[in-house]
């Protein structure tokens, strides 16, 4: 039953609306079958496991799962790069995350993200101008024309990766994002090789950049990661590579979904879209509700147990593979009233959309700012926007879930503000 449900969740045919499947999954808060993973689908259980020190993110603690058709290969990182902090436990996780945070956020760089607002404003305005100038408002793809290029440009500038190289690393990023996706039908050997190759190539590409920044450091994060020497010392070259690869991929593959899911949801809720047009500040609660209602990261399939632990009456043995179904927890009626209703006025909204605990989303404040600006400006400037396909075509990925294209039409584009 569990395996069958999981297959359905992963099945591309259900990508557009996995929520009824999650609802079914929640009937059993911790479900497990055969050699498959232990799947946790209810809010409070997920929330406590995210703060449970008996849970590891390091796949080296995972017991081999034999012929598990859904199981992750124990090390899909290959040998190209060591694991990034996403897949490490403390103290290494904490040290690397602290060092990465130094050039990014408080206490050492408290204004960096905040002060990007003007730059983000400019990018958003430029991309919407581009839509206006494309001459074809009867068919606009909000993904290709907006939601993808916006965060990619931002992460490139932040890291100091030349934007003109985007076509090259785009392919690697897609491949690596796909490796997060537990696709039962892919040939594991073939896919493993593709992943390894992509990591290798991305690693070599970034190594070249880091080398160059060590010689000529700039104001970008790559330079700062390469040359940092704080209380935690310096990152090794391999650590700097893993970390920058993680930031590049995460910056690529998640915010695009947040923005696209956001526009899709708003176009399905014209009353909210109308309110947002009149009241740009509403983008703030809208983004929080989106992170609950349509989270860009649907599940965390990479955790494991360091001891036998009991969760909701089920004993999960040491070394078991654990899937935390964030998007399901976000729709748990035991936690949220009317969970299937999109309601930006919700007061009590401690969603799991950005995770929780020590691995909570590193780029969260940037993602929030990007999505808030993007949605409020799209709402303000697009005249009478409407969906051309509902549901739109989705990307393959079940973990990093979002539309591949979002075809819309509109009657015009208003000019930039002031």
């Amino acid at each position, binding site marked *: 039953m569990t395996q069958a449900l999981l297959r359905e969740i992963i099945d591309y045919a259900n990508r557009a609306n996995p929520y009824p499947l999650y609802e079914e999954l929640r009937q059993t808060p911790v479900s497990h079958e055969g050699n498959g993973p232990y799947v946790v689908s209810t809010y409070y259980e997920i929330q406590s496991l995210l703060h449970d020190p008996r849970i590891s993110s390091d796949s080296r603690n995972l017991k081999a799962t034999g012929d598990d058709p859904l199981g992750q290969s124990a090390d899909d990182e290959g040998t190209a790069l060591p694991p990034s902090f996403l897949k490490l436990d403390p103290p290494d996780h904490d040290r690397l995350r602290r060092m990465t945070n130094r050039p990014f956020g408080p206490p050492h760089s408290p204004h960096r993200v905040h002060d990007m607002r003007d730059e983000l404003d400019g990018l958003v305005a430029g991309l919407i101008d581009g839509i206006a100038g494309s001459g074809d408002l009867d068919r606009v793809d909000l993904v290709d024309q907006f939601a993808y290029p916006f965060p990619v440009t931002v992460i490139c500038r932040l890291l100091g990766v030349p934007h003109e190289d985007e076509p090259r690393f785009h392919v690697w990023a897609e491949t690596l994002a796909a490796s997060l996706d537990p696709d039962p039908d892919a040939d594991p050997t073939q896919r493993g090789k593709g992943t390894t190759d992509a990591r290798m190539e991305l690693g070599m590409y970034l190594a070249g950049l880091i080398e160059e920044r060590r010689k000529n450091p700039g104001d970008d994060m790559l330079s700062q990661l390469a040359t940092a020497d704080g209380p935690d010392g310096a990152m090794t070259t391999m650590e700097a590579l893993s970390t920058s690869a993680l930031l590049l991929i995460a910056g690529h593959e998640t915010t695009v979904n947040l923005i696209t899911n956001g526009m899709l949801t708003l176009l399905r809720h014209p009353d909210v879209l109308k309110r947002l047009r009149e009241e740009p500040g509403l983008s703030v609660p809208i983004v929080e509700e989106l992170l609950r209602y349509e989270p860009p990261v649907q599940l965390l399939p990479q955790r494991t147990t360091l001891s036998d632990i009991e969760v909701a009456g089920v004993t999960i043995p040491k070394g078991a593979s654990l899937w935390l179904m964030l998007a399901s927890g976000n729709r748990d009626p035991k936690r949220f009233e009317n969970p299937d209703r999109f309601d930006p006025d919700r007061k009590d909204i401690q969603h799991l959309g950005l995770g*929780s605990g020590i691995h909570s989303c590193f780029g969260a404040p940037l993602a929030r700012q990007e999505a808030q600006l993007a949605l409020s400006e799209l709402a303000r400037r697009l005249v009478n926007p409407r969906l051309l396909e509902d549901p739109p075509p989705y990307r393959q990925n079940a973990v990093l879930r979002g539309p591949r294209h979002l075809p819309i039409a509109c009657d015009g584009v208003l000019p930039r503000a002031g």
Partner: protein
Amino acid sequence: MTGEHTRDGALEHLKREGRIVIVGASLAGLRAAETMRDKGFAGSLTMIGDEPYEPYDRPPLSKQVLLGNAVADHTALPRRRAIDADWRLGVPATGLDMAARRVRLGNGDEVEYDRLLIATGVRARPWPNPEEGELEGVFVLRTRDDGEGLQRALAANPRRVLVIGAGFTGSEIASACRERGLKVTVAERGSAPLVGALGAVIGEVAAEMHREHEVDLRTGVMVTALEGDPAGRVRAAHLSDGSTVEADVVVVSLGAQRNTEWLAGSGLGAGPRGIACDAGCRAFDVRGIVTDDIYVAGDVARSPHALFGYQFLSLEHWGNAVAQADTAAHNMLSESADRRPHLWVPAFWSSQFGVNIKSVGVPPMGTEILITQGSLSERRFAAVYGYQGRVIAAVTFDNCRWLPFYEQQIESTAPFPPPFSTVDRRPEGNKPVPADFPDPSVPTHGPTITLSGYSPADRKMTFTPGR
């Protein structure tokens, strides 16, 4: 069982036109008032406070305010809602007539009540020699005025600051002084800072933090006298080891005293340890009989806790004030079957020397401690305290995201030592060591959790050592 179904309509009457008086206009008093209005209390609400200010937040006083990042008179608490109260500020309550249901005020006024909530809190323990305590440059830190005065004194670049007592407040003051580049001496009677609250194992970590930040830390000593110059300014302190510390600012940080003197002779079960109340926040009288119309919340309350053997706990914790005020307010306006027990798990935080210290449970009950995650020497760790084979408390230094897990362990009376492994377990986490609390019958700087036995009458000081 709500209003219209009550047996005699008394509760409905109370809610509609009753008189509720809250003595103590700080965090607990304010939050209780808000909860009462939320619950539909439409009668008259009187807020009595001895300070002339509307309710303000105290934790910033030893942190942001001393660092100069916030102004002492800009710490007024945000309101959750309007409370439409009759404010009597700047006037202390001076007496209680339980039979006549009247509170007497310092200006001679009397206020009648149908329900009374006492949330008078604590005050800073003054320097025991009043004449020395009056010297210019000698401070305590509890109120907004204290904070403002001390901030000004620190801004005047004193040559050296002496902090007497290395509890949380004393340590935070020392930390702020160092951050301002001031020379600081800390004199502590116990073996280490924070030893009364967290035990000597953690106290030693705190001591290292002081030393690393170039605090002149003196432990195992008492300040025996303060010396002034002819102009009445403090100039030096004499220590029990025969040494002298020259300082032009002295901060007396020797813990707190409960504000219960005004209840002397009233018949209420109030004493130096606080006001005893039941798990539903109803005050006991001196005979150990619970009252129907007098409730207690916040720092001044002593209340029994189911998780800790129903021993009376006094908690000088911000979170306790909020939670207990909410419970007291709810119960004051409920039929007995609808009342709730105050089951808040003790929790507090402190920020000092750039380190975030957080704790849940009752550390001083612990006999043993195990470092479950991280390392003491790195000052990033989680540790659990054990008492009779169960987890009774936990503390983290810069590791607070794990704390909810340990709180669940305490709530579920999980076994100690924990039978599982965790991320970031180090060799020092292989076996428990004695938590090493000082003998609780010897007062140190006043731990922020006081266990005070099982007697509601508080006729004598009773302690239950953690062993």
